[in-house]
């Protein structure tokens, strides 16, 4: 047969859908029961994780349509295709995105969807049958990350609270790559703070495939910390930032070209003129590329600084179109407040490590602010960038407290 590709059967919100996903939920609940019995988690964690695991069943089809995040279907179909025939779906296979490790023997897919589902597909959940199955795979890895994070944070209950942040609950309950992105980010930063450079390096390489911009941001942090020692000395940080600025001016033309390309691309994607005229087609008819084009590095910096408050607080009230937007707006305020509160409460404002972390975070957010035309997408992007930094400064606060206690004892 010519048509050898995987044929997806969409179970929709049928009874079978709930049977398959309830089996996945049951498996995860059994897992935490065993971990509770083995005393790896306390009773609070057991109760909360029973609830967290249930969320994928509530979100898709029950609270909202899975088409609210239509990319989920691509991930779900790809994982089913890989598990059924061992080959990608035709549209992904056509892109031929692979990187050979051993000539003709071993290669890894560099396609973000294939790479993501290859990792998520390792979760030993019973079924990969519906659009929600990967959400349970996400939960599986999330739970093991929670266990691993207990090595970094002594207070299990406070750590548990971080896993109850609404966006974290939402993005880990749908079949997208955000869970992996956030987890790689968290473990990268925590290992960096422990000076485990090799482990950190291994952790940011997957980001090169699944979220290249986050890889770039963390690479900036990695280089500054390893080579310039910007986390030790304020002057080193100034030298490092001067180097970044200088590099920016040297490669001005190339940087502007890349930024403008993505800036216009995101603006075009978000354009909707009504009557079915939207996206690139609408932009081709009515878009004004010139007004979006940045002409110099100074202009780029200025626009990025002006856009910073917007990216921090988005989605702003004038753009609210569904029930999640006000929740996410309040959450944005909460996260910025939490970041500031942890820093103030633990006297981190003069801590060079905190200053350097905040510097990289602000730099990354500034770059995002240049491209933030699609609210939904950039709220998600911002969250997957911001959350690892919150974990990092909380870890820093714990270290600071431990140091203070030691000094007091002395």
């Amino acid at each position, binding site marked *: 047969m010519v*048509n050898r590709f995987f044929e997806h059967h969409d179970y929709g919100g049928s009874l079978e859908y709930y049977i398959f996903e309830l*089996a996945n939920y*049951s498996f995860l609940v059994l897992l935490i029961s065993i971990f509770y*019995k083995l005393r790896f988690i306390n009773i609070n964690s057991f109760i909360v994780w029973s609830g967290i695991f249930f969320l994928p069943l509530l979100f898709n089809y029950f609270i909202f349509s899975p088409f609210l995040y239509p990319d989920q279907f691509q991930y779900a179909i790809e994982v089913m295709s890989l598990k059924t025939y061992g080959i990608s779906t035709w549209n992904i296979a056509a892109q031929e995105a692979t990187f050979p490790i051993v000539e003709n023997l071993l290669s890894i897919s560099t396609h973000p969807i294939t790479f993501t589902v290859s990792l998520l597909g390792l979760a030993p959940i019973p079924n990969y049958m519906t659009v929600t199955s990967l959400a349970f795979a996400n939960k599986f890895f999330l739970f093991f990350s929670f266990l691993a994070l207990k090595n970094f944070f002594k207070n299990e209950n406070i750590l548990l609270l971080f896993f109850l942040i609404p966006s974290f609950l939402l993005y880990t309950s749908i079949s997208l790559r955000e869970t992996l992105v956030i987890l790689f980010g968290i473990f990268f930063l925590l290992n960096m703070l422990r000076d485990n450079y090799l482990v950190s390096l291994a952790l940011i390489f997957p980001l090169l495939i699944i979220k290249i911009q986050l890889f770039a941001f963390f690479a900036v942090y990695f280089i500054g910390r390893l080579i310039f020692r910007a986390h030790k000395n304020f002057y080193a940080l100034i030298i490092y930032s001067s180097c970044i600025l200088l590099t920016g001016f040297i490669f001005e033309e190339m940087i502007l070209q890349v930024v403008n390309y993505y800036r216009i691309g995101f603006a075009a994607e978000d354009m909707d003129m009504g009557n079915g005229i939207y996206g690139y087609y609408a932009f081709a008819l009515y878009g004004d590329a010139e007004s979006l084009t940045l002409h110099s590095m100074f202009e780029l910096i200025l626009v990025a600084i002006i856009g910073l408050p917007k990216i921090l607080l988005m989605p702003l009230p004038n753009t609210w179109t569904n029930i999640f937007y006000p929740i996410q707006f309040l959450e944005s305020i909460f996260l910025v407040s939490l970041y500031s509160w942890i820093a103030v409460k633990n006297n981190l404002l003069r801590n060079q490590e905190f200053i350097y972390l905040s510097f990289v975070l602000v730099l990354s957010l500034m770059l995002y602010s240049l491209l933030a035309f699609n609210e939904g997408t950039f709220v998600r992007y911002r969250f997957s960038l911001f959350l690892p930094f919150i974990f990092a400064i909380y870890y820093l606060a714990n270290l600071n407290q431990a140091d203070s206690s030691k000094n007091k004892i002395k």
Partner: protein
Amino acid sequence: MNFLQKFDIKGKISLLKEFFYDYVWKKSLLNLGIASIVFSLGYIQFTTPQFYISATLRESQASTAQGPSFGGGAKALLSVTSSESNISDEFKSNLFSYAIAQRMWEKGWATQIYAGGDESKDINKIDKSHTISDRISSFLLGYELYDYYSPHDLQGFIAGKVSMDKRFNATNITVSMRAADQSFALNFLNDLILDADKYAKEYLILKSQAIIDGTQKQLVVSRNSAIAASLAATINGEYLKIATLENDMPYHIYFIDPPYSSEYPVYPDTFAIFLSNLIIFIVSSIMFHFIRDNKNNLW
């Protein structure tokens, strides 16, 4: 203290054993396991298996005009076989059109689909069933429900059941459908594809005949020799088109893979249903005992 001592591997194994004997090694678990199999068997009885039937087609290639050159006629011939980019769009429009549904209706497919294959029934008098909510709505809002099925229903059936995919930058077209009755679906899909292709040819023949009729009228009244020559060339071209189209060869597409049915049904997945129910029932039993034993800790 090394890692293994810190991990207390012996202690963990004994806890794991305890968990196994307290919650897993139970008669109730076996009973629920058996109950899950019974439940799954019962559930599967209420599902209808669906097979995946697909055909792979390929757009007909442009053929170059051979033979003597006859000006406008050759141009007209080329226009018949060119514009390949529109071939799949045109074929798709025909596939889901009312005209094709009507042809399929007249061939008796309505009897197969709506009257359970009872050929003694008049195809225009097949009773149409309506849901209770449809009846209530029509009663409340005061509109009439149709008593019999019509070609419009068949058109809806085709649009809902049959799908056509053409991959980006490819010339292969896949037409597919899912059905419980393999032989019905194989014949239906085959007939549908051939009719959709044939309809395009017939339309072009009719169009050419209409052009010939119109042009001939103009030719009779024409006094200018140049115009008369041009009109004659147009008539030649249209006759050539008709000659090219009046055969049994496919016009838009030809079969690479004729309609083919999957060996196994794509729905339901019996193994997944059995496994899922088994897991749900067994874990429910484990959790029941687990929560009962730990209720003091839980609240």
